[in-house]
């Protein structure tokens, strides 16, 4: 089974997101995947992920957002984590800004692993101590340690 830590290592971590709003935040996170050539067609991927975002609020409350999409433009299952001190409005049901943002990108055909990854991240972030710790980390290694400890 896939391990979140491997998906994060493959994807990336941005501890200080510059973006102040949702679309910009998604672009900033997806930019990491484009740089690493994990996405074959950036425009197709943006369209897919923004379509998903328009259909549902991926801000799941408690300061968390999980923008995600399966797309033929994605080469392999990856996760990018971004943290925003100020918070980004992801239209969460609790109407609070999102500080911890995990972007999940998957190839069209890897549905089971994609859902498994969403389940894993959702469960991980329901833990108060994980959210508190992720809001405090000072470097990427600390993020990976938190994820490793809970996996």
């Amino acid at each position, binding site marked *: 089974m896939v391990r979140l830590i491997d998906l994060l290592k493959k994807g990336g971590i941005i501890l200080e997101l510059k973006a102040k709003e949702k679309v910009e935040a998604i672009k900033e996170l997806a930019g990491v995947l484009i740089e690493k050539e994990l996405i074959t067609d950036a425009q197709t991927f943006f369209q897919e992920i923004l379509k998903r975002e328009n*259909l549902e609020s991926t801000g799941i409350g408690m300061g968390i957002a999980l923008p995600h999409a399966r797309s033929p433009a994605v080469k392999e299952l990856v996760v990018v984590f971004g943290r925003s001190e100020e918070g980004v409005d992801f239209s969460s049901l609790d109407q609070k800004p999102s500080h911890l943002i995990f972007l999940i990108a998957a190839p069209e055909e890897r549905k089971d692993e994609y*859902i498994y990854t969403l389940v894993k991240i959702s*469960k991980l972030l329901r833990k108060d101590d994980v959210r508190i710790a992720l809001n405090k980390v000072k470097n990427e290694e600390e993020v990976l340690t938190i994820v490793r400890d809970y996996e």
Partner: protein
Amino acid sequence: MNLDKILLYCDNLTLEAMEFALNLAAKLSAKIFTIYVIDPKFIAQKVKLENKDKEKIKDEIEDFAWKVLYEIEDRAALLDVKTSLLLLEGKPSRILREIAEGYEISLLIIPRFSRLNLERFLAQNKERAVIIF
């Protein structure tokens, strides 16, 4: 009656009931609030029956709950149906009522094999449409 917000309760939800709810939402251009409620009573029963640790049981239920919710969300996206996923803990009948009121839900879809006392639930929710599927 404007059926623009549908609440789908995921408890022993069949594939047919899920398809029915999503297709109905697509036809009505309605938003679907998909809710899974972790019932502490159910956890207690499972602890007794399976002789497992409470946290372990809760973890398994949460795992299953998210899987159901994300499967529905994935299917909803293919049908261009707007969704919101909710995973809450507590007494299901109370939570369903609170969510229905809070989000001004116009239609509730309840699986026929749900553990709710359907007769009592219907009697307590007369102000909005309910489909038992």
